[in-house]
């Protein structure tokens, strides 16, 4: 009996062992190696072997203006992204939550922006946003804006423009998450409110919104994680430019570690970014636990 129990307890471990070993090799060990690197001055092309410098890479970050700028820029990018995606996604979900002709088709179509290859779609947006020949400029002029901004070439507009392209890809995901959340809400409170004569706005404000809050927080959490890490579309659309106007922390991290060959310093940036994502996620998980 004892022997059998021991064997049964070993089974799950044996089953997940191959996956665990591979994940330790491609994820666990690299992360430890990253921590090790962050404590060294490390270069791949130089002849100098890695040299231990303690926490120097981390203290140097504080004085690195390009790093602190990219950090604030990323936080702004994330804030703009969440502030636009969540209300827009909820709005679309409320619209799609009604019965009308073609609703299922529309819902199916909504998945396309988020699965289309981001690098390719980023370039399609570059063409559409072209400051002289782009369709976006044409449409702005058609509605009477004589001199629309230069979008990706304008240091002020480049970040909002990238937020917009990111929103095009990911608002549909927020919408579909909200849609699933709406479908799971109980019908009784709404009927009771209707009997009591609550207006549509009151029903939304005092019933839908509070009941949907856990779902919304999941959507916020997913968006925050991915907005903080944004890189693909920025890299292909602007490369961080003009100047450094769209250089998010992940883009800076890529450049500093793999283009400028400052591996150790780049490792420190990557760890800081990881820590920020981790902190934000934990904070949001806590917030969700309080509402649920």
């Amino acid at each position: 009996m004892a022997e059998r129990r021991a064997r049964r307890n070993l089974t799950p471990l044996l089953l997940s062992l191959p996956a665990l070993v591979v994940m330790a090799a491609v994820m666990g060990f690299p992360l430890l190696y990253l921590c090790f690197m962050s404590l060294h001055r490390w270069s791949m092309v130089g002849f100098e072997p890695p040299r231990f410098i303690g926490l120097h890479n981390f203290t140097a970050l504080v004085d690195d203006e390009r790093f602190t700028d990219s950090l604030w820029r990323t936080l702004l990018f994330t804030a703009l992204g969440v502030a636009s995606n969540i209300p827009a996604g909820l709005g679309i979900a409320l619209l799609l939550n009604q019965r009308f002709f073609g609703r299922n088709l529309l819902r199916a179509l909504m998945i396309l922006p988020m699965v289309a290859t981001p690098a390719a779609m980023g370039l399609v947006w570059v063409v559409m946003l072209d400051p002289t020949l782009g369709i976006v400029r044409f449409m702005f002029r058609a509605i009477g804006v004589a001199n629309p901004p230069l979008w990706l070439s304008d240091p002020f507009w480049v970040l909002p423009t990238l937020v917009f392209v990111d929103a095009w890809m990911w608002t549909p995901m927020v919408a579909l998450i909200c849609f699933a959340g709406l479908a799971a809400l109980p019908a009784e409170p709404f009927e009771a409110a209707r009997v009591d004569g609550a207006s549509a706005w009151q029903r939304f404000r005092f019933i839908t919104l509070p009941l949907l809050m856990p779902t919304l927080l999941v959507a916020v959490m997913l968006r925050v994680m991915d907005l903080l890490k944004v890189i693909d579309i920025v890299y292909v659309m602007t490369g961080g430019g003009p100047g450094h106007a769209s250089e998010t922390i992940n883009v800076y991290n890529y450049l500093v570690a793999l283009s400028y060959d400052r591996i150790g310093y780049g490792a420190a940036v990557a760890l800081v970014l990881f820590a920020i994502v981790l902190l934000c996620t934990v904070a949001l998980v806590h917030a969700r636990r309080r509402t649920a």
Partner: protein
Amino acid sequence: MRQRPATTLTALASWLIVLAFMAPFAWMVLGSFKTTLDFLAYPPVFVFRPTLDNYRQVFADNSFLRYLMNSTIVAAGATSIGLLLGIPAAYALARWRQTALGILLLAARMAPGIAFLIPLFVMFLQLHLVGSYTSLILSHLIFTLPLTVWMMVSFIEAVPREIEQAALIDGCSVLGVILRVIVPLTAQGIAATSILAFIASWNNFLFALVLANDRTKTLPVAVLGYIGYNSIQWGTLMAAATFITLPVLVLAMCVQRYIVRGLVSGAVNG
């Protein structure tokens, strides 16, 4: 929440919004049939004589076919290894508690890709593996494997335990249960999971940008070549973009019910 019939106005608004989201795809496909001259017209032309020249040009370039092959090999490799390792692990996770595995999977969803990429690049450099399919497939496992495990856990949990227990009593081993009971009963889920993992790998840009060389480059990296410093080859760019995204869009429509679940669980971004 009970769904109510829409008014004409809200139905119309829904249609307009969703069609607006589709507009970039329409513009991409339209552009892929335009000549350079049509592209340089302002205001932009909507009606024109379509040409296949852009597609011809994309395929005249032999290396594009090579990149297509690279993308297919890497995505197929990362997907199948992900399934092979992921299904038993998912079974263990669904039927027993597996804390270590769960934590690793969660870390994979949160960590920025670059945090794995920097050390992997150095490791692969030392192993002389940079530029090989091996390095690309191994690095893509970082997201295909967790995605497979998360997706399969939910499919396996839906299988009634009684069936497995019956098989065990009949003398089936645990591996036999997985092969003869779980796999057939979750076939649809396995199909959906593989499609999602394939898409995630096909779309990945950053890892291939760093770990591939000119011969092993995948399509998302290759398409960047159509934008030069001073000139954009508009038509060919649109044709290449169409060619890269179209398979993904078709595959995604087949598994549209599972897309959100996959995106929630798998690391796709950055």
